[in-house]
């Protein structure tokens, strides 16, 4: 008896690529139009959670900052330098299709597709402290994948010492990339030493509060390195390159004296223009006191050994 074969057309045969993109624009439009009405349902602990993520021993017990604050108080200079600019302007960013190119000193160069990241890797919830170099802090429930799991797929060569990261360049969707007076040089680039990149605390985040990453937080995939100042955790990553020499980094290029390659959170090493000894907790209100900043943002037990014997004043 002949076995009936279910027709299995490719998704692209049913929906053309342009329709796929239009549908997304339409949905984004609807989301925008109903945004005000929807807000109450998108708060903390909403039933909206779309990503299945396991718990992690690396999560802090501290109470996460509200979703509202995490998604409206951002530094994402491609969309503007004011904290409210990314939430206002990042709606235009198209995050599908999206791939991350992996090249340089790897034996299997190739790409990672965002939909594979979301479905083919075990996702973990990582509730991390987040400390900005501007001396404010949050607690953020990321959803992500250890970066080592991603890099290992490409067979990193033994002589590779660093990973260079790059953010998307798409001036038509990123207003500051069209600016005559851009705050930084594009593309935004970052870098980690290979042992930092392979450390279990380092993740590629694809979600926030159990849902996919909002655009203003670096959709669809961003680095999170919780013991370093926030600007090291590069957003909307399109490329990772394994290198032998230390890669250039955006803030270091902008002001080398103020922002080093390492940029580890360190209350004893001040920014030349302001103190790093204390931080303001976002969401604590108008009359809250500052709190002391912790060495390596409180992750010294896990990552302190990476820097043993190094003068952290010199390698800031």
């Amino acid at each position, binding site marked *: 008896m002949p076995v009936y074969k279910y027709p299995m057309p490719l998704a692209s045969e049913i929906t053309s690529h342009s329709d796929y993109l239009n549908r997304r624009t339409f949905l984004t439009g609807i989301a925008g139009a109903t945004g005000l009405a929807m807000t109450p349902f998108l708060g903390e602990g909403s039933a909206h959670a779309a990503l299945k993520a396991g718990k992690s021993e690396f999560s802090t017990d501290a109470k996460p900052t509200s979703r509202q604050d995490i998604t409206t108080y951002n530094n994402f200079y491609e969309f503007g330098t004011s904290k409210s600019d990314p939430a206002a302007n990042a709606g235009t960013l198209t995050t599908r299709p999206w791939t991350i190119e992996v090249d340089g000193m790897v034996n299997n160069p190739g790409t990672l597709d965002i939909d594979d990241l979301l479905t083919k890797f075990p996702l973990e919830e990582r509730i991390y402290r987040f400390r900005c170099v501007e001396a404010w802090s949050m607690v953020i429930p990321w959803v992500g994948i250890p970066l080592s799991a991603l890099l290992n797929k490409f067979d990193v060569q033994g002589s590779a010492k660093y990973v260079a990261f790059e953010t998307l360049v798409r001036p038509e969707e990123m207003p500051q990339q069209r600016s005559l007076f851009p705050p930084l040089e594009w593309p935004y680039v970052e870098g980690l030493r290979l042992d930092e990149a392979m450390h279990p605390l380092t993740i590629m985040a694809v979600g926030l509060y159990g849902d996919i990453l909002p655009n203003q937080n670096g959709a669809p995939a961003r680095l999170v390195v919780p013991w370093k100042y926030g600007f090291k955790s590069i957003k909307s990553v399109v490329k990772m390159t394994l290198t032998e020499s230390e890669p250039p980094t955006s803030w270091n290029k902008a002001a080398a004296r103020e922002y080093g390659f390492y940029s580890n959170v360190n209350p004893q090493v001040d920014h030349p223009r*302001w103190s790093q000894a204390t931080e303001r907790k976002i969401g604590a*209100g108008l009359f809250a006191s500052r709190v002391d900043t912790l060495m390596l943002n409180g992750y010294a037990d896990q990552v302190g050994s990476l820097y043993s014997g190094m003068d952290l004043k010199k390698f800031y």
Partner: protein
Amino acid sequence: MVLASIIKRAPTWLVYLAGFIPAIYYIWAGVTNQLGADPIATLENALGEWALIMLIAGLSVTPLLRIFGVSLVKFRRAIGLVAFAYVVLHFTTYLWLDRQWDWGAIWGDILKRPYITIGTLAFFLLLPLALTSNNRAISKLGAHSWRKLHRLVYPAALFGAVHYALLKKTWQLEPLLYVAAVVALLTWRWVAKSKKRRQAELAVSS
């Protein structure tokens, strides 16, 4: 002229009333928790920015008169005092809400952080001007030395604008526009003054 008669009839308390609307708004929004994720920074920055706006408004009175013949001179004292009130509110927000009266940390900031050093300096340059913004002080000091004293507003405004430009993570357009506005207003005075001096010299020699 219609404009001139409107200006003539408008009472100076209007400047205080309009000038304090932003302050009242920000303080009210702050206490009712409507200043967003980082209310202290928002309040501190807004009050500082309004101080700069009012200082620039005060510095614009003379060029407006000389270039366009519009006289806002009768409002200038009110504009200056409103500017100083914003400086005081901004500084108080820093001392109280931002630093929680931690004098050790505040003193460290003033000595070590150039943008706080010059911001504090600007405050102390403006303080004697606010204290002498009354008719009694003018007659006591004499118009000539009073005028000389009040030239301190020039460095104070410049320090204020540079203070703003220095506190950003990198050079940004908005604070630099304030610096440019102050520099333009001071340059105009300098050019106008040297032109006047040259004319006086010419008059003497001819």
